[in-house]
């Protein structure tokens, strides 16, 4: 093991040259490349940071806008709810009015229906009463009843407006047609004719007939007038009243 000075010195020189070579062709390019890339990365990071800041500011703006929209939405919702409440209240009031109208209408219909029903019942009752009275009167009919009806007729005759009767009569002969359930006596016929002539102021041409269908009483026809004092006509009138006439 011996130190070779030429090798020793040459190796020193070689190493120094190698230091220069590596520094020139390895360390410097690599460090510059790394630094360049680091600069690029820093540039990208700066850009990214800037974009992030922009995005954050944009986000803040959008959030503010969203908050504003939300506030506006809530306000509109509240106004809408209030409007809906008012409309609902109005509609409920209108509905109450309609219900009241409908109730009153129903009550009127019900009342009318009740009236009609009552009328129907009354008509039926009157019809039944008429049938009953007709049966009863047909059994009670007789000369006595007939005489009583005659007397009543004579009393009622005084209450008739003579002027109206006289006005309705035509000039010339006036016929007096008298129908009775039972034959009238001569006395009653004269009395009746006399009363009628007195009332009309005219001489009457009287004709007397018997009609059993009248049941009781009499029916007097003069001109256009027919004076009814018989049970048949009374019952018919009674029945007619029951039918609403």
């Amino acid at each position, binding site marked *: *093991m*011996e*130190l*070779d*000075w*030429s*090798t*020793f*010195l*040459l*190796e*020193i020189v*070689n*190493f*120094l*040259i*190698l*230091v220069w*070579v*590596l*520094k020139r*062709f*390895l*360390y410097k*390019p*690599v*460090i510059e*490349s*790394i630094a*360049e*890339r680091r600069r*690029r990365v820093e540039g990208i990071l700066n850009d990214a940071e800037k974009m992030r800041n922009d995005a954050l500011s944009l986000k803040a703006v959008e959030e503010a806008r969203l908050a504003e929209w939300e506030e506006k939405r809530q306000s509109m919702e509240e106004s809408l709810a209030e409007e809906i409440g008012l409309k609902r209240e109005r509609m409920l009031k209108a509905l109450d009015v309609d219900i009241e109208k409908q109730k009153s209408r129903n009550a009127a219909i019900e009342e009318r229906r009740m009236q009609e029903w009552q009328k129907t019942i009354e008509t039926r009752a009157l019809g039944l009463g008429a049938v009953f009275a007709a049966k009863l009167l047909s059994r009670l009919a007789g000369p006595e009843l007939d005489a009583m009806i005659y007397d009543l007729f004579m009393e009622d005759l005084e209450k008739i407006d003579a002027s109206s009767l006289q006005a309705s009569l035509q000039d010339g002969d006036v016929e007096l047609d008298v129908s009775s359930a039972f034959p009238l006596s001569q006395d009653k016929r004269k009395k009746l004719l006399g009363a009628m002539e007195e009332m009309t102021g005219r001489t009457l041409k009287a004709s007397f007939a018997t009609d059993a269908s009248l049941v009781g009483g009499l029916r007097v026809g003069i001109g256009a007038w027919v004076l009814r004092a018989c049970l048949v006509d009374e019952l018919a009138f009674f029945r007619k009243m029951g039918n609403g006439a």
Partner: protein
Amino acid sequence: MKSAYLFHVGMIPISSAVATTWGIMLALTIFLLLAGRRFSTEPGLLQSALEGIVSAMIDAIEAVIPGKSETLLPFIGTLWVFILISNLCGIVPGLSAPTANLSVTAALAILVFLSVHWYGIKSEGLKRYLHHYTSPSPILLPFHLISEVSRTVALAVRLFGNIMSLEMAALLVLLVGGLLVPIPLLMLHIVEALVQAYIFGMLALIYVSGAIESQQRKKQ
């Protein structure tokens, strides 16, 4: 072990270690020239590998002496690269590792010795740097001087001894065991080449950082 001269350049004899060193330098220069042409901001595989190697060197230097990687990288990094490649040359058939030559390792050790003082003086100035040899007491001056010499010798002999012994062992095993038997030893050679390059470079880094930091400590 006397160097066997291959040829002479003028009056200067050229040993195989020097020739191998020139070969390494030439190969490295060509490789770096070719690789440097492909450098771009979008690194390829080779550029990434080179950047990884240089970054690892910078990190190692920064770990020992922060803030001085730019100053120390050319010297320490070149030590690592040159010693590693020189060590690995030993496994190439027909070549001998330059670092198996004491003259080469001594040259490297002397360079480390000189660089320690260079960086120390550069850091604080000659007077203040020399003052640390008498600090804390002038009595310690001989010990400092012995330490400087011994560690430089140790650097040279450690690298030379390890690499030379590995090559020798591989040669002996090859002679005794046959063609394929030294393969495990060659694999050990690779590991040893890496370890010795790392140790040499780290020791040089520690010595240089010691010289710089001793001045900084005094300053503080």
